[in-house]
């Protein structure tokens, strides 16, 4: 029952974040909201597994956490460099790798 309540709460939180994503006002707000939404999704996915008695689907949650990250980096590069190909800035010292 507690888990169900938890799921309901998460849904409510997601709804609020969606409102932020829709009203913006800036794109950064939207991305922030999506990011936060992603974390909540990960939590909800974990929770739903327990709720339905099949907790084995945590893989999806893991994948979400990872993919969300990639997307956010891509968005950052979108704003920062207007390019997906550009490397994130390198300092001179880093060219020498210790490997």
């Amino acid at each position, binding site marked *: 029952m507690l888990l169900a309540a938890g799921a309901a709460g998460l849904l409510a939180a997601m709804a609020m974040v969606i409102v932020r994503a829709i009203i913006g006002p800036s794109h950064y707000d939207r991305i922030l909201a999506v990011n936060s939404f992603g974390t909540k999704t990960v939590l909800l996915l974990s929770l739903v597994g327990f709720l*339905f*008695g*099949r907790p*084995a*689907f945590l893989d999806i949650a893991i994948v979400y956490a990872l993919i969300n990250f990639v997307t956010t980096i891509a968005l950052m590069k979108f704003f920062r460099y207007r390019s997906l190909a550009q490397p994130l800035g390198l300092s001179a010292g880093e060219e020498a790798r210790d490997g």
Partner: protein
Amino acid sequence: MSFFLSHFNYIAVAILMMAGLFVLFSSGNLIKRMIGLAIFQTSTGLFYISLAKVFGGTAAIAVEPGSSEARELASRLDPAYVAQYGVDGVVYSNPLPHVLILTAIVVGVATLAVGLAIAVRVREAFGSVEADEIDVLSRVEATQPGPQA
């Protein structure tokens, strides 16, 4: 359970489909159109998956018969129901539509990629991704001779 609730999924799917198509129709922007198309395609998936859901079913990944997990799952349901619709004491949802929709999602992303690639080339060739402007430019093109090999 009321009729509305049991068919809510289909209504939602219908609305989503139309929303996708509406995005497609209403916008002259090629990228936006692709987004609309993607929504439209995804809604198909929702439709299939809704068909596949079974009361009290669980994902179609077999639970070891007789394991605690299986017992736990069965305990949530009416034994008669499990006996009638279950397989080895567990009720599963229908796996077939899932398989189909996996394929459909893949097709969707393939379409999206190719469509966007074409849209990018349109932008490079015409300097615009607005359908109206492209139309105008195309009509100019029609009056010019082709390139010679």
